[in-house]
Each structure stands twice: as structure tokens, then as C-alpha cells.
């Protein structure tokens, strides 16, 4: 798969996010801030409810990039601002985060990708941009 061509609109990825995902992410990342699992604490600091870790939403953007690149380990740059919280309801369905991407250009085997990460009608990440290797898979040496 090599969809990373200049101007390409990459297939939008959709990810459902539930409270269970946030608990798992808290454990895996070490970020145990209670605004990501306690409604009491979240509303106490003025949030509408429990919100996803910004880094979890960013991880979903990275996941979409891996899908588009055809393999993990090909993202060389990824950056964003955390602009709007993703509020995650306490139910089985959760909330859907959508990751869309456009290839702005390809140079020296690297594709520059502009992302759009939304929840409902809102952009939840600001200026998400990435640089992804294209072409043959790079050697990943074992440490």
C-alpha cells in the first residue's frame, strides 16, 4: 500500500473511545490524573465530565498514520496542540474520534501529512502535522 502521494486524501479512520480505554491508557502511560477517570474530579475543575488524555487522542492520530503508511515505525515527526477536550461518556459506546489526513507533499522519501482530528463537529487537536517515510520499509535494528 502506498497511498502517500502528493495531494492524496487519506481514508478517514474512526475510533470509538470508551472509559475502559482511558483506564487502560492510564495504566500503560503512567498518567493517572483523575480527570481521565473520575467525573467528580473532572466536573470539580470545570470540565463537562471525564475527558480523554490528550496524549491518547494523539496516539489515535499516530495509529491512523501507521495504517496509511502500511506499517508501524515509519512516522518521523508528529506534533499537535491540545485544543479541545474529548469528553467520554460513561456508557458502552463511548465517543467516536475521527482522523482524516491529506498529503501536502513528498520530498526525499518523506511525506508531509496534515491531519484533521475531530470529535463530533469539533477539531480536538490543533495543527496536527506529521512526516512519514514512504517507499521501501526501513531496517529497524534490534537494540
Amino acid at each position, binding site marked *: 500500500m502506498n497511498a502517500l502521494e502528493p495531494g492524496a486524501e487519506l481514508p478517514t479512520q474512526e475510533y470509538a473511545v470508551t472509559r475502559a480505554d482511558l483506564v487502560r491508557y492510564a495504566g500503560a*502511560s*503512567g498518567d493517572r490524573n483523575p480527570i481521565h477517570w473520575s467525573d467528580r474530579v473532572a466536573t470539580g475543575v470545570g470540565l463537562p465530565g471525564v475527558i480523554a488524555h490528550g496524549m491518547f487522542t494523539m496516539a489515535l492520530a499516530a495509529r491512523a498514520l501507521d495504517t496509511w503508511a502500511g506499517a508501524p515505525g515509519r512516522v518521523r515527526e508528529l506534533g499537535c496542540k491540545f485544543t479541545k477536550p474529548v469528553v467520554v461518556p460513561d456508557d458502552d459506546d463511548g465517543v467516536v474520534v475521527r482522523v482524516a489526513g491529506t498529503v501536502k507533499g513528498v520530498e526525499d522519501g518523506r511525506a508531509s501529512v496534515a491531519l484533521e482530528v475531530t470529535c463530533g463537529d469539533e477539531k480536538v487537536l490543533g495543527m496536527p502535522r506529521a512526516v512519514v517515510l514512504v517507499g521501501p520499509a526501513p531496517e529497524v535494528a534490534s537494540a
Partner: protein
Amino acid sequence: MAVSADLAGRTFAPTAPYEVTAERVAEFVAATGSAYDGTAAPTTFPIVVAFRAMTDLMEDPDVGIALHRVVHGEQRFSYTRPVVPGDVLTATLTVDSLRQIGGADIIGTRSEIVDADGAPVVTAHAVLVHRGEDG
């Protein structure tokens, strides 16, 4: 209270070595639903190491940060090579910039993450927003 004005340009001591095990990567992969082929860890995995460097900064009593008023404003990863199981990583954090906007401190940090040989792996830039008393 604003953070110490001489914070800009300061470099903190490296974090304790962090061993990237297959189990830790697998846990992160499962938590984020990422694809994994046994080599490269997910792109945002190094936040685990960078987070430790940021915690050292935020908990330093000389810096003057109140932890509960810190919001993660921006994050960026710039890779030299992917992180793989077996890596032993340390992060060295430098405060690149410090600005005050509307009573908040905007703290620009750069954590250089290197392997056991000291070779660069990934640089993690983070902007921390430290809200003022009324923020």
C-alpha cells in the same frame, strides 16, 4: 505566582534509565489499539519517558510550579530512529522558552531521549501551560 524567571535555558539532570521491555510496549499497543510487529514501538510511546522528565521539572521545589494548575498545551516527537524493545532510554529536559500570557506561564520544554550508548533516538517537545491563581 509565576514560575522562577531564571527557568528559561535551564537543563535538568537526565531521568533514571528506562528499560523498554516487550511487555511495556505490548501494554501500550493494547491501550492505543496500535498495530505492532514486534519491533518499532508506537509513535507516542516515548511520552512515558518524557513524562518522567516533565514530572521532575514540575515537582522541583525551586521551579515554583503548582502541579494541579498545569495543562499539556502542545506535544511533538522528532525521531532519529524508532524505539524498540531492549532500548534503555534516558531523557534530558531543557526549558527552551518561558513566556507569560494573561497570567499563565507558557513553558516550552525539549526532552532529548537517548539510548544506552548516548545516541539520539527521539526528541520530545512539550509546551506546558501553568495557569495563574485565577486561571
